[in-house]
């Protein structure tokens, strides 16, 4: 049951109680002096704990947004649930089943209008990155990785249960299955690569770029073509009735793009900033 629930869409959420947390208008956030920002847990390079410190691109964007509102950021570090609708419930509009309050804004929400259709209690805010999938590979073998043929004989590491995993298990008519090494935790694929256990690792672009940036073993980054590869924009989400807060976040995000702040934040994690189209 659990596996299937992971893929459920557009199903009523959360049981009988659907009390929505009250939206705080912009003025209330500003006068309170705190912007509550929801970020994902254990999600390099976006948001992760290192020692007692919360680090990452989303963490810094949250801090910059808070600063621009004259506030400090307070983070709700969210454990991802089975699907994004659950995450929006826990992180934006209701809070967790154990009673933790949701954030004022959640970062790292795919900027896809369908989410608003499926979740009438949230409103999307401006996109700040275009994300896709990438592979880090031994530079000498890069050309064979482009069509995945390398992995009919050599090993490739991937984080379990991700789209990258499904792509590897599907590619070349399922012929790679015996050479896919599954790891749990985003740093582990790079470790397997550094240790020489695998010839490549595959995952979300930002993660791969970040890990290559910090890796001791030289790696080329390639983008193998596959039907299932997706490119998507990442933005934020607020409660549906937080209209003035959403507008302010959009304004500040645009200003951070223009000033080079976003580019700087991404670069400090070894990730290329890819500006989303401004048509939303």
């Amino acid at each position, binding site marked *: *049951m*659990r*596996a*299937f*629930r*992971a*893929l*459920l*869409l*557009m*199903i*009523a959420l*959360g*049981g*009988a*109680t659907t009390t929505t947390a009250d939206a705080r208008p912009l003025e209330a956030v500003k006068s309170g002096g705190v912007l509550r920002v929801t970020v*994902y*847990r254990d*999600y390099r390079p*976006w948001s992760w704990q290192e020692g007692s410190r919360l680090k990452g691109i989303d963490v810094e964007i949250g801090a910059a947004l808070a600063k621009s509102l004259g506030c400090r950021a307070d983070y709700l*570090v969210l*454990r*991802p*649930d*089975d*699907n*994004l609708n659950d*995450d929006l419930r826990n992180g934006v509009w209701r809070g*967790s*089943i*154990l009673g*933790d309050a949701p954030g004022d804004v959640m970062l*790292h*929400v*795919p900027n*896809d209008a369908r*989410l608003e259709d499926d979740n009438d209690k949230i409103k999307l805010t401006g996109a700040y990155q275009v*994300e896709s999938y990438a592979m880090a590979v031994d530079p000498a073998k890069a050309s064979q990785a482009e069509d995945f043929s390398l992995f009919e004989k050599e090993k490739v590491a991937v984080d*379990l*249960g*991700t*789209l990258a*995993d*499904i792509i590897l*298990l*599907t590619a070349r008519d*399922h012929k790679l*299955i*015996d*050479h*896919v*090494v*599954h790891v*749990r935790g985003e740093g582990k694929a790079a470790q397997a690569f550094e240790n020489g256990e695998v010839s490549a690792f595959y995952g*979300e672009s930002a993660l791969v770029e970040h890990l290559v940036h910090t890796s001791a073993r030289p790696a080329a980054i390639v983008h193998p073509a596959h*039907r*299932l590869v*997706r490119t*998507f924009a*990442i933005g934020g989400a607020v409660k549906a009735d937080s209209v003035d807060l959403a507008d302010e976040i959009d304004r500040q995000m645009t200003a951070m793009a223009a000033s080079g702040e976003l580019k700087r934040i991404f670069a400090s994690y070894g990730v290329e900033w890819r500006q989303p189209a401004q048509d939303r």
Partner: protein
Amino acid sequence: MKRTILASVSILGMAMGGAFAAPVTDADILNDGKNPKQILTNGMGLQGQRFSVLDKVNTKNVQNLVPAWSFSFGGEKQRGQEAQALVHDGMVFVTGSYSRLYAMDAKTGEKIWEYNARLPEGIMPCCDVINRGAAIYGDKIYFSTLDAQLLALDYKTGKKVWQKTIDDFKAGYSNSAAPLIVPTKANGALIVTGVSGGEFGVVGRVEARDVNTGDLVWSRPVLEGLVGQYKGQDTTMTGKANETWAGDMYKTGGGATWLGGTYDPDTHLVFFGTGNPAPWNSWLRPGDNKWTASRIAIDPENGELKWGFQTTPHDGWDFDGVNEVVSFDLQKDGKTIKAVGTADRNGFFYVLDRTNGKFIAAKPFVEKITWAKEIGPDGRPVYNDEGRPGDPTKSEDGKKGKEVFSVPSFLGGKNQMPMAYSPQTKMFYVPANEWGMDIHNEPVVYKKGAAYLGAGFNIKPVFDDHIGALKAFDPVTMTIKWQVNNKAPLWGGVMTTAGGLVFYGTPEGYLKALDAKTGKELWKFNVGTGIVAPPIAWEQDGEEYIGVAAGWGGAVPLWGGEVAKTFKGINQGGSYWVFKLPPKSAAN
């Protein structure tokens, strides 16, 4: 001071008045199904028959049943209450939602103690914050928590004696099943548990711990290729690596043992069911994927796997194989066979030889099954190829994909709610649900902030007027003798008694008593909220008491669509209800 003295006196009085004040022994546990004065095991006996030998309440007088007492779990934590209660030493013990445990005076319902597990931030229970009950042995009571801890409390005071971590809740592990106590020669009584969890990488295993210390004695992984442990040393591998799995997928292949197990003293075997394989998309994992969606038998002395039987090889429908394995004696062709019965998610009722796991028979217990034509003489399903969900990796980009209607739905012909077996009528009473699911591929899905490949599921009733159906299943002729339909899905479990009765609760809030022979409804009482827990019966001061936890919740209300219409307006709750005959009609 005066109050303290009075309190001690009342506890002393109770202890003396009860016939079973002594610590729970092996003999007590082994005799649980035959001694109605206490209920020590989930399943009302280790074999899990849920049959009470009591006949004081029977087909002739059950219509007189009235409430004896009711107890509120209190607080704001009113979610699904799925636990069966235990009775010992004049007390009723029951777990509640959010990993709580209550001890009540069995006669009056007065609270004796309450234990609230402190749950950490960030737990992510799969299917509501339920718990399915406790186990009792010696002077301790045991239960597991949503953050995957196993707790032992002093049953008299509710004070914690020890706590052991089953696994890391941060890695997705949880626990909600009632632990199982099994007496062994090698290591005394052991406390046996499975694992549950909702994330990728959670792998099923069965573990046994010392009842006194909680120290791990053995561990048996359910997936072929993984190695067991005995007292910290590696033992045998379960099956052979890569015989039924490709690549390294057996290391993370699912098979969670989340519903707990039963034990059969005749064969000295522990029976567990195992969950569906991961990932859900069957096209990504060629092979039978043993032992997911299976029943397995384990030697409690050393944790060795004795047999396995896979109900859904290469599962593609999310048919967990966790449903309970109930031991019974099958009288067929003049012989008595040591058998087990199990009603699978996949809609078929299986009878197996419990000494060796050999297939005897399987027939549908729900209607209009689409995924398989039948179960063949070798025990393997004869698949309907068009009934398997398509490979979502083959779907056209940006399109929704072909829709398949599959019966049963992934919530199963029967889910977690336990069935009962009556040695008197020789029938199983199966709380079944008639529902299917539309399955379609979703071109764009997101998970943890990233794109993902998904499928959409929409559960639908098969019939207009009901989803739930309590079925009397004859394991000799493999036919349904009678059934009683229920509008909402059944989620509560069943008990049968020597009084010729079948008791079960409904989401509509009724605890009902049926004639075990005919299914005729003889009594019902509405407890004011949905019932999703199994009832029990026990004897006290010469009278028969019937008890059940009440409180709507569990996995069903997490689903919307057409199914939700059947339980619209049912309120949540959290209480324990007890019934008995009024004094003047107590005599037969």
